[in-house]
């Protein structure tokens, strides 16, 4: 309680509190005395002591020794009073005893809360790992990424950087303490000579890369500028690889290893945490020098840039700095850099990427689940308070103060909340583990088993919050009403109580509607995404990568021979119908090349695909014009997709025309055919142009992946495929063997993951609401038994009586649905970026949800209402 006052004045708010209840004729003197004594105390014992004393005086002046004004909060703000009570342990034991006596209530309450807290803990846990947890690097807030930034069709897009730009920007900028690049393309090498051959994910980085992150190695050293002069290239290993392959041997430093036939010296090992932003799947980091030829390349984008801001430099200043450098490049290299600019994003802001907005949504949904759970519990507690009225009445009569009863009820609720939180955390661990199977790569690590302290703290906080939400009001009511209820023989029941519970049910229904509308929009969107025709047929196709180390397959002919042999072995496997080689498979990696049609200035961006002739068959891509590749092409020929042809030549046929590879001075390639468009990165994107080159002649990109179409399930052929490759070359690795369906499916993994959680929450919400409605009407019927009995004795028919109860249900459900639908409609904008070919305000979704939930709600009310019809008037009248 800090008040800003002149020195030696008593706290102004405390004076106000003290004045609250002072009679006017005494006010001046009491306040004057307090003021005077405050100043004396302040001089003698210091201001802190005086302030505390003054507040205590003010408090007691206003509320006396038995404060009533604060009501239920009293025990929280006046610890002195708490100390005067029996020890807390006593209350906890009493609460546990009470819960044991009513196991039904205990289980229901704990499970309800566990669902609410578990949902939130699950979301928090994943969000903590992916975005919230501080990055493990020193001064991580200074770390940034630099992107190329350009406009296309009115949209701001970012891209990785061309080596020429990297070299220029590194030289021309001043905002950065360290500025480094890494090869953004996936790059694998074979580790041979230490156990079985293995394919490693390798990242090549420029000299400053490790200086940017500033993390100390686990063993040895990192890479640096001096490494350029070494005879044998240095390599830094990941902790994972080091432990797996080298048994965590600290003497690994200095050892020479063979990567794809070339020797490398191990100089150090980076801790696992390094991978958080430097590549969690990377096994080894190798040095990369940008050769003069590449330094002139301003058009081929493949470098990722990380940098560390100089102390005191803001992100905005850094943006201005790189933009100035980019502007110089756009003037010097108008061919390739005409419209490109650059931007800087902090590593922290970029974490989680597209998942960030999904987390906001998921956290909202989980919050709703907790609110619904708390509403159910509050309702249960209200009902229970009524049932325990006799107990409280007796205890009040025996001298228990209201505060005492309140504290005990709150302790009981806290015990329930603590148990609920424990079960909830266990549930969330389990569910996150299950979700791990559909989690996208970016989330895998976060779904690993094990608990972190942050999640536990979050669960504890939620437990406390839920006590506030579900316990305080019912406890206040129960503790204050004790005396009245025992003396009152209710005929009509406590209607105010039923009213409060009805409001809770309406709120629950509204929240459930909002969740269900969102979940339905997401489910519908996902099913629409999955129905998108990608333009090729991934089912029944399996794929893997061949490594082909340079020492053993040094030239085009050697590689071609290997392919021929492997194809022959694969074709011999029963069930295999087509085989081909390709440089990059769809939905795995896509990078962009520029092509210029002969005699034109227009540049066409397209994905380059170098394929053996069988690929069109294997992928079931259709020929639209011209011809496909043959086994023996004598010159470099190309095939374009319909979109490419349209951009380059409009409606005219592309067959027979020629295209410059790269810029206008690049090699000329003749187009022999046109095929249909196919999606290459995401089912939700527009088809992007592709340029197919034949693998029969040497080309810029060589095939390294193999596609196999089979009539059998792809997974059943995995071992046969491995054996076939081994028969050709025992040292050849078969990496990333999987079905093409899996590859395409992983592009929707993020969507599935979000949906999995979201749909789970929606179902929990639905069930909890149904339970809440059931509970309310079971209670209403029980409460109105005497009334119903009298009505029936006077001639009311069972159906009329049920209708009487249900009328109330109709009103509550109608209100809940209406509020929920309005809420869902007004917040639907949040879902816009998650829906696919579907408006977030599509009325069909709203009608479907309202119908489903309405029906369910009425059924949940109707089941207990039937009991009203079975009330025996004779039995009731005897008891009235």
């Amino acid at each position: 309680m800090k008040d800003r006052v002149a020195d030696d004045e008593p706290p102004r708010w405390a004076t106000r509190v003290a004045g609250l209840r002072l009679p006017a004729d005494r006010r001046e003197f009491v306040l004057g005395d307090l003021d005077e004594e405050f100043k004396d105390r302040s001089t003698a014992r210091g201001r802190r002591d005086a302030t505390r004393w003054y507040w205590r005086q003010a408090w007691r002046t206003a509320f006396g020794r038995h404060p009533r004004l604060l009501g239920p909060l009293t025990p929280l703000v006046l610890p002195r009073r708490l100390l005067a009570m029996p020890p807390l342990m006593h209350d906890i034991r009493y609460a546990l005893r009470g819960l044991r006596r009513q196991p039904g209530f205990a289980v229901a309450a704990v499970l309800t809360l566990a669902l609410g807290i578990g949902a939130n803990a699950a979301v928090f846990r994943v969000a903590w790992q992916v975005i919230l947890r501080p990055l493990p690097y020193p001064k991580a807030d200074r770390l940034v990424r630099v992107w190329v930034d350009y406009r296309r069709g009115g949209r701001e897009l970012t891209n990785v950087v061309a080596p020429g730009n990297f070299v220029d920007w590194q030289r021309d900028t001043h905002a950065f303490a360290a500025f480094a690049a890494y090869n953004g393309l996936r790059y694998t090498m074979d580790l041979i000579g230490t156990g079985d051959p293995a394919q490693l994910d390798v990242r090549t980085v420029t000299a400053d890369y490790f200086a940017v992150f500033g993390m100390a190695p686990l063993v040895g050293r990192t890479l640096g500028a001096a490494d350029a002069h070494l005879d044998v290239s240095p390599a830094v290993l990941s902790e994972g690889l080091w432990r797996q392959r080298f048994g965590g041997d600290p003497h690994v430093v200095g050892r020479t290893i063979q990567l794809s036939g070339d020797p490398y010296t191990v100089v150090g090992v980076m801790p696992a945490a390094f991978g958080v932003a430097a590549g969690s799947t990377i096994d080894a980091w190798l040095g990369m020098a940008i050769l003069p030829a590449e330094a002139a390349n301003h058009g081929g984008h493949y470098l990722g840039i990380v940098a560390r801001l100089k102390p005191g430099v803001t992100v905005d200043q850094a943006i201005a700095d790189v933009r100035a450098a980019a502007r110089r490049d756009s003037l010097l290299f108008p061919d390739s850099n005409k419209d490109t600019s650059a931007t800087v994003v902090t590593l922290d802001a970029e974490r989680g990427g597209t998942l960030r907005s999904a987390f906001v949504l998921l956290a909202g949904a989980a919050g709703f689940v907790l609110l619904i759970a708390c509403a159910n519990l509050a309702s249960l507690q209200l009902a229970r308070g009524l049932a325990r009225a006799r107990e409280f009445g007796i205890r009040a009569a025996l001298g228990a103060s209201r505060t005492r009863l309140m504290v005990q009820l709150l302790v009981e609720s806290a015990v329930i909340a603590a148990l609920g939180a424990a079960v909830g955390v266990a549930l969330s661990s389990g569910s996150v583990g299950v979700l791990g199977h559909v989690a996208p790569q970016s989330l895998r690590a976060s779904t690993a088993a094990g608990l972190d302290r942050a999640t536990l703290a979050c669960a504890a906080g939620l437990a406390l919050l839920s006590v506030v939400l579900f316990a305080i009001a019912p406890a206040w009511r129960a503790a204050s009403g004790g005396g009245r209820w025992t003396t009152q023989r209710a005929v009509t029941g406590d209607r105010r109580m039923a009213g409060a519970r009805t409001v809770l049910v309406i709120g629950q229904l509204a929240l459930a509607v909002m969740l269900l509308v969102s979940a339905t929009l997401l489910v519908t969107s996902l099913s629409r995404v999955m129905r998108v025709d990608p333009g090729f047929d991934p089912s029944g196709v399996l794929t893997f990568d061949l490594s082909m180390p340079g020492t053993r397959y040094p030239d085009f002919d050697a590689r071609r021979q290997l392919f021929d042999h492997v194809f022959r072995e694969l074709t011999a496997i029963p069930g295999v119908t087509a085989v081909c080689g390709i440089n990059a498979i769809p939905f795995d990696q896509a990078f962009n090349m520029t092509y210029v049609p002969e005699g034109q200035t227009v540049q066409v961006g397209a994905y380059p695909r170098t394929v053996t002739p069988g690929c069109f068959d294997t992928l079931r891509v259709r020929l639209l014009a011209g011809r496909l590749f043959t086994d023996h092409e004598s010159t470099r020929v190309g095939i374009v997709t319909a979109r490419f042809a349209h951009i380059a030549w409009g409606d005219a046929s592309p067959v027979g025309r020629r295209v410059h590879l790269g810029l206008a001075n690049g090699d000329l390639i003749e187009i022999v055919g046109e095929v249909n468009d196919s999606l290459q990165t995401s089912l939700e994107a527009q088809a992007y142009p592709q340029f197919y080159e034949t693998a029969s002649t040497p080309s810029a990109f060589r095939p390294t992946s193999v596609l196999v179409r089979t009539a059998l399930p792809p997974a059943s052929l995995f071992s046969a495929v491995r054996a076939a490759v081994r028969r050709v070359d025992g040292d050849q690795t078969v990496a990333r063997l999987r079905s093409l369906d899996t590859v395409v499916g992983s592009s929707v993994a993020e969507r599935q993951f979000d949906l999995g959680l979201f749909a789970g929450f929606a179902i929990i919400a639905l069930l909890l609401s149904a339970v809440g409605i059931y509970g309310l009407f079971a209670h209403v019927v029980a409460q109105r038994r005497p009334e119903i009995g009298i009505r029936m004795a006077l001639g009311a028919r069972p159906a009329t009586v049920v209708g009487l109860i249900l009328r109330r249900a109709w009103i509550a459900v109608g209100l809940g649905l209406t509020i929920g639908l309005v809420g869902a409609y007004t917040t639907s904008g949040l879902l816009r970026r998650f829906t696919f070919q579907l408006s977030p305000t599509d009325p069909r979704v709203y009608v479907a949800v309202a119908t489903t939930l309405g029906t369910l709600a009425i059924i949940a009310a109707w089941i207990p209402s039937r009991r009203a019809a079975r009330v025996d008037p004779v039995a009731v009248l005897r008891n009235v």
Partner: protein
Amino acid sequence: MSRPDSATLTLGDFEQLVLLALFRLGPDAYGATIRREIEHRTGRDLAMSAVYVTIDRLEAKGLVRTRVGEPTAARGGRRRKHVMLLPAGRRAVNVAYRRFKAMVEGLEHRLDHA
């Protein structure tokens, strides 16, 4: 209002404490000094307002008289209410003291070691 007979008048526990404090403080007695005197001697943490409630009661019983002083800066420009012991008050404390002393006589040893 008839003046109550000081011999039969009974004083509350807290009223006795306030009267004794007035005895000690003489002309310096007012809310803050009374409160501090009692707190200082008995260790009882008192609310200021409680002192005033008691003074009002003692004044109604005709045992003390109050007088409003001048405003001072030390009190934020508020006035003081001085309290003076009346002869009846003096007698009442005396009676209470004698009764207490009579009851205590011969028990001092045991009370001090209780």
